[in-house]
């Protein structure tokens, strides 16, 4: 038997082969495909042009209006209408209107639609999030999505795997966001270009699902094709109640081949911040000078889950947002929104004078609901801080975990959570 990594095993299974190796070109069957209100209109246009009549499986294609939803303007409304009409025509089971929707990469795992052992493609670069479940999930363009919606298949070049071993117990206020920012800071934004990033070690084994999603979500920020974590009891606990169909756990063989291996002791790691204008400009929050801020965003497919909101609430409880700061809290899905409300988190946010929004990608990509003016700075729990990402070309975005974002909202400058307790 050939030794394989978890990524290779999943791809081999879906290609109907006993084994695959890096650089092999394969055609793999997919378990699930998704598009959003930005990417799906182009995919639908390509679908039409091809002359295709039906999607390969109406239960395995999801269309999720989340980027500019609720409709931010007439043009966005027209794009979302395109999705809605296509979903009706094709009788897609998984189309989500405002009021039932969520940010795609938080929504699909929560609904049990993407599962361990799956091959998932999505016309959105953060599709790699589902690697946290032990799935091979990767972002593609709209044309590739169109072809996959028609055929249920996609061709891949099998990526080489890179292993990242994390050792040691995390310090307080250090989570998945800090581990992945540390990683990108070490290897750079093209440090894993075309690779499968595999996260292992005792720190990962002790990591809750939420933090695993955050880590795999940002694998694309290092250029990776996928970020993946072998499923275990934590995964099983998350998936068991949600799964709508059978799933399979894969693990890398002991002697699987890796292109390179990084081995880090993270027991001394501080909460990290990525400075403008690249996710690789990473520094410990304690090493930063006074950086005054205008806005805080807690949300997105990276850090908009229930546990993220709990972290922000733990810091904000009984405090007030600094007078010159706008603090936006955006639960990533309708379910998270409802849970947060039931737990009393909204009471804490509203007492602190933060604003709570319905789920949307909104400000993360400079779409709507919190755009920055020239010269303004935001601390955001999102994933990208490129030039102009959240608004004006002369605005700045600092990426952090939810606790640092909440502490910064109170302090009016980038702050460690301990500074405001």
């Amino acid at each position, binding site marked *: 038997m050939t030794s394989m990594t978890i990524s290779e095993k999943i791809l081999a299974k879906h290609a109907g082969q006993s084994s695959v190796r890096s650089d092999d070109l394969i055609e793999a069957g997919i378990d699930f495909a998704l598009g959003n209100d*930005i990417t799906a209109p182009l995919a639908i246009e390509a679908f039409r042009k091809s002359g295709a009549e039906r999607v390969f499986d109406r239960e395995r294609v999801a269309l999720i209006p989340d980027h500019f939803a609720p409709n931010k*303007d007439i043009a966005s409304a027209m794009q979302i209408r395109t999705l809605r009409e296509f979903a009706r025509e094709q009788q897609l089971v998984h189309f989500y209107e405002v009021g039932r929707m969520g940010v795609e990469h938080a929504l699909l795992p929560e609904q049990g639609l993407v599962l361990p052992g799956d091959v998932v493609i999505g016309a959105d670069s953060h599709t790699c999030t589902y690697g946290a479940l032990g799935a091979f999930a990767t972002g*593609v*363009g709209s044309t*590739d999505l169109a072809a996959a919606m028609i055929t249920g298949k996609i061709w891949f070049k099998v990526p080489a795997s890179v292993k990242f071993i994390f050792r040691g117990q995390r310090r307080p206020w250090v989570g998945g966001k800090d581990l992945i920012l540390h990683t990108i800071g070490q290897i750079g934004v093209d440090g894993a*270009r075309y690779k499968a990033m595999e996260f292992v070690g005792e720190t990962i084994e002790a990591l809750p699902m939420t933090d695993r999603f955050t880590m795999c979500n940002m694998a694309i920020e290092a250029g990776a094709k996928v970020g993946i974590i072998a499923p275990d009891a934590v995964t099983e606990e998350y998936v068991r109640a949600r799964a709508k169909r059978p799933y399979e756990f894969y693990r890398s063989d002991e002697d699987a081949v890796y292109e390179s291996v990084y081995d880090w002791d993270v027991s001394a790691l501080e909460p990290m911040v990525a400075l403008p204008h*690249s996710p690789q400009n990473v520094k410990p929050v304690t090493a930063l000078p006074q950086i005054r801020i205008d806005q805080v965003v807690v949300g997105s497919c990276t850090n908009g889950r229930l546990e993220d909101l709990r972290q922000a609430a733990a810091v904000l409880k009984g405090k007030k947002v600094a007078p010159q700061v706008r603090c936006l809290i955006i639960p990533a899905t309708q379910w998270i929104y409802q849970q947060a409300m039931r737990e009393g988190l909204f009471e804490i946010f509203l007492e602190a004078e933060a604003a709570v929004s319905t789920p949307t990608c909104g400000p993360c990509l400079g*779409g709507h609901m919190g755009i920055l003016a020239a010269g303004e700075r935001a601390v955001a729990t999102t994933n990208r801080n490129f*030039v102009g990402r959240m608004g004006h*070309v002369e605005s700045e975005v600092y990426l952090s975990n939810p606790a640092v974002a909440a502490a910064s909202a109170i302090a009016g400058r980038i702050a460690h959570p301990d500074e405001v307790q």
Partner: protein
Amino acid sequence: MKIKGQAWKFGDDVDTDAIIPARYLNTTDPALLAAHCMEDADPSFAARAKPGDIIVAGRNFGCGSSREHAPIAIKGAGVGCVVAHSFARIFYRNAFNMGLPILECPEAAASIEAGDQVEVDLSRGSIVNHSRQQEYQAHSVPPFMRELLEAGGLMAYVGAQLRKPKGQPAK
């Protein structure tokens, strides 16, 4: 398949938000997207780029989002080819699927300067810098990929294949 024009030089890690900011993604119209191409990196680019011009960039061109609007905007602006040290994975695939020629060539990316007159031959993989009398070699683009580019992208190529009489081999 030859492309000739003036070089526009950009650095490493040019991201898709620089190529086409997300605030303009409420349309899929190539002309509307082209009007904002490279806006946050060089606001004058869209107005000044001429048909056949060539973007030359460093490492990891097209990193970030999966938006196909990025190669659509570049192609819509009239750019004939992008030459870079390397490309981000999703952009690489999207560029071919949209019919935008791209070549990986570290030597060309390092040597070509803004404003140089550059000629690219995709079938040979050669890049000639007429301003500096230099020639650089990239991997050639194989025939089926050139056919795909000439058709205008993957879907047009697939459509053309479907319309071919059965039994006739591809060119």
